[in-house]
């Protein structure tokens, strides 16, 4: 009978296509909106990932990587003296303005790396060498968003806080949430490139001693210095949490996803209802001929699961294709497997809820209806 159910479903081309395309559209929108949300949130913590430190130490009032209160310079030595700390280096990280050759100003994210070790330097250089940062006025720029800096090449210069900066390398860095170009230089030079403040040190990057659990070293730092300390993962989630709480993105995307769910329910529910109405006499005939209610419910569930799975596959495929096509460009798009699972669950829930209408109708159907014309 399950085969009959599928033939009843697929044979009614117009409703079948409406159902599948409706559910595919729902899945596509869900994946697209969800991936944009995940992509945006992931971009908020790109600076954390690009530095790649195992432990971040900051002021206890730290809210995110973009909203920190500076430390005093002696905090660095205090951290270095904590049990389990192999080494600790300063990191200067602030939004500053660049004056371009054209005279325009552009905000950039300025990384001031430890002069000696250059800890936090870009992992992959496209042009030049990160060791060149030791040259006078040297900066490395990130390739992403470099068009905002008027696409400077090696040897080009621009001004930072009335001081010359000369490009000595171009690094492969990801786009981040604020969409500002990255500029790397040494710590001491970064202090000159940024307008002077009473305290300049934003973060301390720490390497734990080999063999010690990172969390234990984090706890030691917190306990000994009274500063905030985070593993890289904690720092990422702190930043994501900040943007989740302090921007309208989750609400906006949440409204979109709710609308997707409602529209999906409306399309699937209405079409399933029409399908049930149209097939009422056939279900009645099947019931009269001795098909049990349980079998009829199984038939309807199979029909709904089938359109759900096909719709989901098409929608998800299309959604992932959008992500693949837009790889590396400005579109923030990230599809974690959890999103695929949630989208799958939502699609199946929509199908199940929509099929409840059919199931209710069929269960209440008197088989004697077949003798009414």
């Amino acid at each position, binding site marked *: *009978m399950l085969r*009959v159910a599928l033939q009843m479903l697929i044979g009614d081309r117009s409703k079948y296509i409406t159902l599948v395309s409706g559910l595919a559209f729902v899945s596509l929108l869900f994946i697209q909106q969800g991936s944009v949300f995940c992509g945006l949130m992931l971009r908020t913590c790109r600076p954390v990932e690009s530095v790649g430190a195992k432990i971040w130490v900051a002021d206890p009032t730290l809210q995110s990587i973009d909203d920190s209160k500076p430390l005093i310079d002696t905090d660095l030595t205090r951290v270095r003296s904590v049990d389990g700390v192999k080494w600790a280096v300063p990191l200067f990280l602030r939004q500053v303005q660049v004056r371009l050759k054209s005279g325009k100003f552009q905000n950039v994210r300025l990384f001031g790396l430890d002069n000696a070790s250059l800890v936090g330097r870009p992992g992959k250089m496209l042009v030049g060498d990160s060791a060149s940062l030791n040259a006078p006025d040297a900066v490395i720029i990130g390739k992403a968003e470099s068009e905002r800096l008027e696409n400077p090449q090696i040897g080009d210069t621009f001004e930072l806080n009335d001081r010359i900066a000369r490009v000595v390398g171009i690094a492969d860095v990801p786009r981040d949430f604020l969409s500002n170009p990255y500029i790397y230089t040494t710590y001491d030079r970064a202090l000159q490139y940024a307008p002077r403040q009473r305290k300049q040190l934003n973060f301390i990057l720490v390497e734990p001693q080999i063999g010690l659990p990172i969390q234990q070293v984090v706890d030691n730092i917190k306990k000994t210095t009274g500063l905030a300390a985070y593993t890289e993962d904690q720092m990422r989630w702190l930043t994501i949490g900040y943007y989740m709480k302090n921007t309208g993105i989750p609400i906006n995307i949440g409204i979109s996803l709710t609308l997707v769910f409602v529209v999906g329910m409306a399309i699937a529910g209405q079409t399933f209802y029409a399908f049930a109405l149209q097939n009422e006499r*056939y279900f009645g*005939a099947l019931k*009269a*001929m001795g098909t*049990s209610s349980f079998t009829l419910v199984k038939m309807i569930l199979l029909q709904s699961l089938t359109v759900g799975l096909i719709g989901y596959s098409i929608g998800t495929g299309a959604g992932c294709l959008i992500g693949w096509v837009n790889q590396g460009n400005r579109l923030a798009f990230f599809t974690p497997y959890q999103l695929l699972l949630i989208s799958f669950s939502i699609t199946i829930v929509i199908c199940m809820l929509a099929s409840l209408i059919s199931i209710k109708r069929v269960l209440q159907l008197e088989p004697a209806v077949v003798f009414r014309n």
Partner: protein
Amino acid sequence: MKIQDSELSNYDIAVSLTDVSKTFGLADTSVKALKSVELKVYCGELLLLVGPSGCGKTTLLSVMAGILDSDQGIVDIFGVRVDKLSQAQKTSFRRQYIGFIFQQFNLIPTLTAAENVAVPLLIIKTPYSKAVKKAREILAMVGLGERTEFFPTQLSGGQQQRVAIARALVSEPRLIVCDEPTASLDGDTGKLIMDMFRTTALNKDRAIVVVTHDNRIFSYGDRIAEMLDGRIVNVHKNNRELIKEQ
């Protein structure tokens, strides 16, 4: 629950209705569709149930087929008290022993003729290929061997009704109930269908009950039960031998 063949009586009586009543609606708006109906249908018999519209023919057929519960009375089909069965038992009983033929055929439009005929076998979990094979054989019996892969919309009304007959026969039911089987057909096709009932569907172990308005087919019944206002008012034998001679 599967009812064993041994539970069915070996009597000649296929259907026995005693004091069967059925009322639709409540209080002031209620309609007494059946009023203390008494009727017997015998094995090997084709009984026509006739009467004006609204007299209760279809209600009686539904009660007889176990798809509508009577309010009172005894509904005995091949010795089984259908009125005492639970809904699940009635479903199982219908699956095993009742064949249905409807005025509007009720063939599933997205299934081929063979698949439509195979449905009763699929309901009793016969493997698909075996069910369709048997369906093709039955379709050949009703003269549609060449059209087994046609969809209902590709068939004429008479051909569709023959498919419906094949569907009713495929599971070899003991009782076939038909609701206005010729109402949607022209005169000649209606007679062809009734001929088929007598020659192909009817046998000594099976009874057929046909509800009809169509007086052109009255001659095909062994007996004719006349209904009026929810009661059987007259049951008379049809002298078929005499009709044939005439």
